[in-house]
């Protein structure tokens, strides 16, 4: 059997097996939107952990974190740091959001805005914005898939057809199984990723250098600059690290897909216990850095864009095809399962907040669930089409996703703590924040002026505008009380 046949065969078996296992675990098909999108708010700590971990640690985290360690050295450490800050904030923030969602029977992030600020229009606006922000994020996962399938095929095949096939399989899976199926698929994904990462971070350094400390000895001797942050006012410097860790830590749970996961929880306490232990799971990123640094020594000279492939290439060149097959399969699930969560979040927001609330097209629970299912397929087709046409430039749009999605944070938090904030204040702040992101993005070739993360600048503008409007024109009505 030829090496590409073995490696790609293992990928196909693992993906097919995961989908089959998850479908078998879902007992009946949901017709109620609450069952379809937030699994009837029934998840305890374990499933919740799978979902939250599943959405945060994607293939991009793994390929990207190794690629960053390879290309930018210590700047990559921010990926390890921001999760911990996200969970410290999340410990207080998630149960509070959950309480509102539970008491008011909410489904999506846009529902939360509609309910708390008493404005259907705000809900529709937020839903539309979030839907469009999700598309480049889904597209990015497709680029990750392509890298993995190309390497697993030993560059012998054009991976485009494979990417399209795998992705459409996932769309049909979400169409059928919804949130509950997603949680089951996450079990296989997390187990396999854990194995692949431990292999890459421990076995590869031991094989080439004897041990992880010995590997760092080599880096200290040859490339010491890659182990500290440069103290200049440039991209990937110390100031960049500080501003980026702050922004990404604050924005950790602001994505619409995170809201779905939060609302699946049975209780606030399950969320609290998750926030305590999740940083420990995040430590597996450490092994990803080891793999990236090992690749830097084993196959030096790759450009920043290509470096995302670095450690999988090491596996391809120096290990048997079946090892490559399992590592690639872990990565492929790491791209597919989070894409499934993104599809579900985007589709539920589109059907509920845009079609139903915005245009009054969809009435009744059964019809709404059907609309969500059809939106899953539509969103998947749209993302795939965008990817086929634009591939490269869309990666730049990711910057807009990360910086943009964080701008929803003030609206989420102020609804909990400051009664003077009205829908106008939130809308003005959001508009100012997004405008700041877009202006700097369009006006400057450098996405990080003076090395400072623009998302953080935009967030500061956003909060300042909300606070000013709330102080001058306080809200007159009040949101429904939460018991």
């Amino acid at each position, binding site marked *: 059997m030829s090496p590409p046949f073995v490696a790609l065969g293992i990928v196909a078996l693992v993906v097919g097996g995961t989908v089959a296992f998850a479908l078998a675990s879902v007992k009946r098909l949901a017709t109620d939107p609450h069952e379809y999108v937030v699994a009837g708010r029934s998840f305890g700590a374990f499933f919740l952990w799978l979902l939250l971990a599943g959405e945060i640690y994607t293939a991009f985290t793994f390929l990207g974190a190794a690629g960053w360690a390879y290309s930018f050295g*210590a700047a990559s450490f921010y990926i390890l*740091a921001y999760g911990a800050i996200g969970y410290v904030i999340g410990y207080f923030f998630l149960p509070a959001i959950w309480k509102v969602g539970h008491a008011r029977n909410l489904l999506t992030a846009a529902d939360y805005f509609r309910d708390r600020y008493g404005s259907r229009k705000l809900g529709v606006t937020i839903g539309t914005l979030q839907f469009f922000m999700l598309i480049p994020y889904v597209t990015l996962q497709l680029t990750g898939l392509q890298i993995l399938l190309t390497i697993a095929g030993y560059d012998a095949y054009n991976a485009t057809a494979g990417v399209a096939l795998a992705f459409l399989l996932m769309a049909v899976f979400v169409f059928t199984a919804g949130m509950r199926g997603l949680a089951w698929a996450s079990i296989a994904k997390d187990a396999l990723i854990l194995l692949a990462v431990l292999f890459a971070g421990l076995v590869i350094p031991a094989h080439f250098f004897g041990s*992880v400390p010995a590997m760092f000895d080599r880096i*200290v001797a040859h490339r010491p600059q890659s*182990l*500290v942050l440069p103290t200049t006012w440039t991209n990937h410097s110390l100031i960049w690290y*500080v501003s980026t860790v702050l922004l990404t830590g604050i924005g950790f749970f602001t994505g619409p897909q995170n809201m779905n996961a939060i609302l699946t929880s049975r209780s606030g306490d399950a969320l609290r216990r998750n926030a305590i232990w999740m*940083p420990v799971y*995040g430590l597996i990123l*450490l092994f990803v850095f080891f793999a990236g640094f090992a690749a830097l020594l084993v196959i030096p000279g790759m450009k920043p864009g290509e470096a995302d492939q670095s450690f999988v290439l090491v596996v391809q060149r120096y290990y048997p095809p079946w090892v490559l097959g399992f590592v690639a399969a872990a990565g492929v699930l790491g791209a597919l399962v989070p894409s499934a969560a993104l599809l579900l979040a985007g589709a539920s927001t589109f059907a509920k907040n845009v079609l139903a609330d915005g245009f009054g097209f969809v009435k009744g629970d059964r019809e709404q669930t059907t609309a969500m299912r059809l939106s899953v397929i539509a969103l998947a087709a749209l993302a795939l089409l965008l990817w086929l046409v634009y591939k490269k430039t869309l990666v730049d749009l990711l910057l807009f996703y990360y910086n943009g999605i964080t701008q929803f944070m003030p609206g989420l938090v102020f609804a909990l703590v400051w009664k003077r904030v009205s829908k106008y204040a939130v809308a003005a702040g959001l508009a100012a924040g997004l405008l700041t992101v877009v202006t700097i993005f369009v006006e400057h070739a450098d996405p990080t002026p003076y090395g400072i993360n623009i998302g953080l600048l935009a967030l500061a503008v956003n909060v300042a505008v909300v606070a000013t409007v709330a102080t001058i024109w306080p809200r007159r009505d009040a949101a429904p009380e939460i018991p």
Partner: protein
Amino acid sequence: MSRGARAARVLLACVSPALLVLGVPFANRIEPRVFGLPFLLAWILFGVLMAPVTLLAIYRLEGRQKA
């Protein structure tokens, strides 16, 4: 919750973010190596590990207050 417990909760919550954000400019160095890791990476690792420790302490504190 008593004032003391409230203050302790806020202080505990600040430990990990302070290490990971404010502490990093002071930890931005290779030596001394910790278990073979460069100092900066070891520092960030320590900061991340302090998150579950402090959150668990807060969780216990809240539990005792409720009881």
